[in-house]
């Protein structure tokens, strides 16, 4: 195996012909059937494996679907799956390997913001193309990345707005709780600016962070209990994956209930709920752009196809597997790329990039659209209530699609992102 990749590398550097390289690296594939390589850059081991393995699965499913229908531009897609093992430096290394050694046409990958920041220079220096499928804190506008997840205004703010509305319960006090890293910090900065702009007094906003893998929420839940004692208080939570179970358990055990103080979660989706005892979470809320419970023909097909795929491929969990927001974003990202390649009639990164602008796709959550110039995605916003079976009951959804704003108008009103009229991030004129 090592010999192959070595030879491949030597050939690649000598001949520098991508088509030839692709043909040589898979001796088992008949020459007649041309393939195009794509990279899948998700952690399959380490702490992030819990979330990222599902993204790899769903990308492979999309590839299989496309190949079954004849591939892209007559070529079968051949995915190169690498494991960056939840190690941020390894992400950059593997990205470099995918771009320079495997010469993939596009990469689907990353989950955490730090992993994305780590591969960003690799993609920018080598003019690669990355589809990033997770909701994130914004404040980024890279020429070489397409962001199919939500920007802050497509998730954070609608969630808070909902709780403030009469429909959502008219809450007046907000406890911002997060894990201590870049997404929650930036998210809470934006949320705080938003709440202040909406006239919430500063002493009705509390902010608190916990380390990664924090298990002991006694003190914090005690604080929330006092914070909410007058009524009208809610929690906006950006707590990351693993810490959620101890948090919700403690919350319920100390006698707090969703009727008195609901938790709006921004990082809890169906796939995480799969490994949780949901009894303590029932009735709490989450804001996303997709839920498995979305009622549409496309979504029904998507959910069934994924369950069938998981069972057929003998993935752990089999047909008990669920779909969630980042998985949907990863899935339609592959199709957006395929459509753009077909429009551009080429795999060339610059041609494909221009062809992505304005692409639409009938995704499981409804028809979504790529922005015409800012590399992000128009998506609907949904609020769901957690049910006992780990699914969500959708309690609110926006009428149409919400325009992505990589630079939040509450924290960076003077900045914009445009790759058509400007060179990425630019200063707006007053």
């Amino acid at each position, binding site marked *: 195996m090592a010999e192959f990749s070595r030879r491949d590398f030597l050939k690649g550097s000598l001949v520098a012909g991508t088509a030839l390289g692709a043909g040589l690296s898979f001796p088992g594939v008949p020459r007649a059937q041309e393939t195009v390589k794509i990279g899948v850059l998700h952690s399959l081991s380490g702490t992030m494996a819990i979330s990222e*393995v599902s993204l790899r699965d769903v990308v492979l499913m999309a590839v299989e679907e496309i190949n079954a229908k004849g591939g892209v531009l007559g070529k079968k897609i051949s995915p190169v799956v690498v494991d960056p093992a939840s190690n941020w430096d390894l992400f950059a290394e593997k990205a470099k390997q995918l771009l320079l050694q495997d010469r993939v046409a596009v990469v689907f990958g990353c989950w955490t913001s730090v992993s994305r920041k780590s591969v960003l220079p690799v993609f920018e220096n080598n003019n690669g193309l990355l589809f990033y499928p997770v909701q994130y804190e914004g404040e980024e506008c890279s020429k070489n990345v397409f962001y199919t997840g939500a920007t802050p205004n497509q998730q954070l703010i609608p969630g808070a707005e909902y709780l403030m509305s009469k429909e959502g319960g008219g809450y007046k006090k907000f406890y911002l709780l997060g894990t201590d890293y870049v997404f929650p910090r930036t998210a809470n900065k934006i949320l705080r600016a938003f709440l202040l702009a909406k006239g919430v007094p500063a002493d009705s906003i509390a902010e608190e962070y916990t380390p990664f893998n924090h298990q002991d929420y006694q003190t914090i839940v005690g604080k929330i209990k006092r914070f909410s004692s007058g009524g009208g208080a809610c929690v906006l939570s950006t707590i990351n994956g693993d810490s959620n179970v101890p948090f919700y358990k403690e919350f319920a055990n100390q006698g707090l209930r969703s009727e008195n103080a609901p938790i709006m979660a921004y990082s809890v989706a169906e796939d995480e709920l799969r490994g949780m005892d949901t009894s303590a979470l029932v009735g709490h809320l989450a804001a996303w752009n997709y839920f498995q419970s979305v009622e549409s023909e496309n979504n029904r097909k998507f959910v069934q196809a994924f369950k069938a795929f998981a069972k057929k491929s003998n993935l752990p969990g089999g047909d008990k597997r669920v779909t969630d927001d980042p998985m949907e974003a990863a899935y339609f990202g592959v199709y957006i790329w395929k459509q753009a390649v077909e429009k551009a009639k080429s795999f060339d990164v610059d041609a494909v990039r221009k062809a992505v602008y304005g692409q639409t796709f009938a995704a499981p959550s409804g028809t979504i659209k790529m922005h015409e110039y800012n590399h992000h995605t128009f998506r609907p916003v949904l609020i769901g209530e957690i049910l006992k079976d780990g699914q969500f009951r959708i309690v609110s959804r926006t009428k149409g699609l919400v325009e992505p704003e990589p630079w939040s108008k509450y924290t960076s009103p003077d900045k914009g992102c445009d790759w058509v009229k400007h060179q990425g991030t630019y200063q707006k004129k007053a």
Partner: protein
Amino acid sequence: MVAWLAAGAAGHAALPPASPEIAGALTDLTGEDADKREAAVTVLGKTRDPRWLQFLHALREGSVYARTRAGKTEVVVGGAKATRGDQDVIDIASAYDRGPLGTVPLAELKEVPADRRLRLVIKPYLDADETRTQLADPDPAVRRGAAVKLGNQAEAGAAPVVEAALEREADRWVRHALREALALIRLANGNPAQRADAARTLGELHSESARPALERLVADTGASPAAREAAGQAIRRIDRWGLLTRTVETLFQGASLASILLLMALGLAVVFGLMGVINMAHGELMALGAYATFVVQNWFRAAWPERVDLYFVVALPVAFLVAAAVGLVLERGVIRLLYGRPLETLLLTWGASLIIQQGLRLWFGAANVDVSAPRWLSGGVPVMVGLTLPYNRVFIIGLATVSVGAMYWLLFRTSAGLRIRAVTQNRAMSSCLGVRAGLVDATTFAFGAGLAGLAGCALTQIGNVGPSLGQNYIVDSFMVVVTGGVGKLAGTILAAAGLGGLTKGIEPALGAVFGKVAILVAVILFLQRRPAGLFATRGRNAEA
């Protein structure tokens, strides 16, 4: 033909007490216009007819459906769902009198959705009815919840209901909540004398949730001076009580964290402290215990679904035995070949930890698994006003105490313990005196591993169960053992108590992130002063 007949009959049965208004409301309800749907709910709610209230309840639960039969839209209430062949079917009943309408495929029905807005409109109509039922509920927690809700709403009309409930109520905490609710209602709606009186009562009740209302009263220049004075006094009283509850709360939290740390470190204290093996796989042995709990839970779910709450009692010994067995294999298989070579054992056990971890990931999947809390470990016991002690934490404090007690008994009151201590102190001499050192090593290691499994089992009630569970706990375990002093159980116990108490003591002021930093700095400084930990063992272990 038959279907058509059935539809006709169904249409007839579903007719509510004939009123065009209600029929119109039902039609609006199935439409898209949110305002019309809201109005429709109001029409139904205002009838105050218990059957329509039941219907609204079903609507809120999401079990109301619409179906179109012979060009007419009909509203039905769904019951039990089932799968027949490849079809999902559902029992349906008429909207008003719940006359059964047979079983139909789910695909023929369209759910009448109740978004949060609609549910909020429904809520007041159901609440009055619901609160009355809740106040008569056999479960005190439900009665108490209803009382708190009435207090927060503070509506004048609820006062007689609360008074009536108070007369019947026997449970101490529910009575307390009812009195609080009554006082809150009077504080909001009574005359000046009543308000002053209510403020005094709230002070006596130490009602934290009345604080905002009392503050408003103090600031309200239109209120009577007597009432404002009483409110001020009540606030001071509540604050003093708040200080007391916070102190007790912090003490309990410290004790709880200490017991968790102790439980995690106990197995390591045996293996590392007594045997000198730096066991990096300690965390993974905990993970094995946690997964054993998961497996036992699934057995119970499959075999005795009605006794599922008892699974945890069985899981505790099973987790101990599974981890002990793996520990035994580890010790007999490889570690015994490397005694006295700490660096090699460290690498070896680290390798073992990676193997176990990846094995769990391959077998159970990378995602966390769901271990649900048995009912007797969910919720908490209210011990004083404003303080609820979660059962799971009380249980872990108990388990840690029992484990420590059992370990002391084993080490100092049994002959097996005597042999363990003998081998620890001088292996060569005890071998000469006829102690089978190898057997003692194996049992000690298995015992330590078993304790790790036990800790893993207990921790399923607090945190996650996933393949990387061990890594989350290993650092804390080592921190406790090293701070306590290697080889001394008393040191481990004291270190756990100290670190737990210190963490919870400084966390309210510093926050979780800086709290953790401060603790690590404190431990480093402490170990600089006393490298051997709290209790240094006096010279021995020549060969280690």
